[in-house]
């Protein structure tokens, strides 16, 4: 396959960026999207140019590092797929592919396609954990968890923290991520004592980071590589709203 890529190049946070076109020839349809970029970078390096900086780590769809907006869609055209798990066979010979970084005012661009996603870490730090002492590992089945809750916790816990939801949201909202992280703890017995405090703290941090509010559009769920359901936002809203009027915890 011979393709053209248009890539956002930006030297550092302060520099202005722009889209730059490159031709990449001899791509195998079995290459992953990131391997295609590796080929481009070999080409650039050989020509004495700066390679394109992009985030990646596991390359098997579990770490949440890869983060490219491909033709305007976070993680590209395939549903339930991270950028690293996207293959070139989903594109056609001769295609022009536009590649941009996640865009959110809360994600400063560090270089080219790499953005700083620490804002998401700070939301977790604000409450996405359990601090109630739970003792040593309990006997299996000593604490019963209804199947429904276990499933829901698992569905929410699979969030890999990539930030695609934020990149895709017309409001730049981080509520799908925040909802997933609050929800997987909030439906399990260990997460109950701090459930309401957690919801308030995480939502406050979400807003303090400058993310927008959720208007229930659902673009986030269309790009989420692990299929986090929109319900997690309603769960979080319900926890916040029921926590607001309480005088004590």
């Amino acid at each position: 396959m011979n393709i053209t890529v248009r890539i956002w190049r930006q030297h550092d946070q302060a520099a202005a960026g722009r889209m730059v076109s490159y031709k990449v020839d001899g791509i195998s349809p079995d290459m992953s999207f990131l391997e295609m970029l590796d080929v481009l970078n070999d080409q650039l390096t050989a020509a004495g140019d700066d390679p394109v900086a992009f985030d990646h780590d596991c390359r098997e769809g579990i770490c949440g590092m890869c983060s490219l907006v491909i033709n305007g869609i976070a993680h590209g055209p395939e549903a339930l797929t991270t950028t690293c798990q996207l293959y070139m066979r989903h594109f056609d010979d001769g295609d022009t592919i536009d590649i941009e970084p996640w865009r959110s005012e809360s994600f400063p661009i560090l270089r080219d396609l790499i953005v700083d996603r620490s804002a998401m870490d700070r939301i977790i730090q604000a409450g996405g954990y359990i601090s109630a002492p739970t003792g040593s590992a309990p006997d299996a089945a000593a604490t019963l968890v209804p199947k429904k809750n276990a499933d829901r916790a698992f569905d929410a816990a699979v969030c890999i923290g990539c930030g695609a939801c934020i990149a895709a949201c017309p409001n730049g909202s981080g509520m799908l991520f925040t909802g997933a992280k609050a929800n997987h703890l909030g439906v399990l017995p260990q997460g109950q004592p701090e459930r309401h405090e957690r919801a308030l703290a995480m939502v406050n941090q979400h807003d303090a980071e400058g993310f927008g509010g959720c208007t229930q559009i659902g673009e986030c769920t269309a790009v989420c590589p692990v299929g986090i359901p929109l319900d997690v936002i309603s769960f979080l809203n319900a926890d916040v709203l029921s926590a607001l009027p309480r005088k004590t915890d």
Partner: protein
Amino acid sequence: MSTGNVAGVRSTAARSSVALHAAMAVTGLIMILFLLAHMYGNLKVFEGQQGFDGYAAYLREIAQPLLPHAGALWILRVILLASVLLHIFSAFTLWHRSRSATGGKGGWRYETTKNRRGVQRSYASFTMRWGGVVIGLFVIYHLLHLSADVIAPGGASASPYQRMVNGFQIWWVVLSYVIALIALGFHLRHGIWSAFASLGANKSVGTRRFLNQLATVVMLIILVGFLVPPLAIFAGWVS
């Protein structure tokens, strides 16, 4: 959890986007209840002048003599006005936050011209804000026309029935009304679903489907209920 100042956390959360959306949802639902009652009133036009003007007079007599003349109506008006103001305040605050979060560009912040409409968002969902502004402007014009009798296309009258019948014989009055109702239809299609989801009701795939169907049904009832009287007047069935 080291959140320390619990009261501070609460007062910050009371200004969070979640709280503002809840305020917008509750006030939006109050406005919808009003719209349903208003629609019922409009349909009284088919009972003729006596029925319609009688209903208008009755609205001013509710709970009399417990309340003074038009007392109940004024209580409703104050609740409604407070809802409108809170709804608009929240809408603009959240609008501003979304713009700041996306460098002022919202869903159009990527250089590419591909997939500009996103993957699955609906037309209704991305016309909420400008559509809301259209509705707001229409409401002002509408009050000046049919409530305050300040502008009087077709001729002023002390009779609400006459004002309505006079007004809706003019094509552009009907047209502006229809355009505003279409804007309202889109606003309600997304708004009713969104309101319940903002309040925490969207808890399963089944509920999500139900809420979306509910939004469509309520939107259609309101749309048809409001469209029938002016169109009937325009067609000359009511005169």
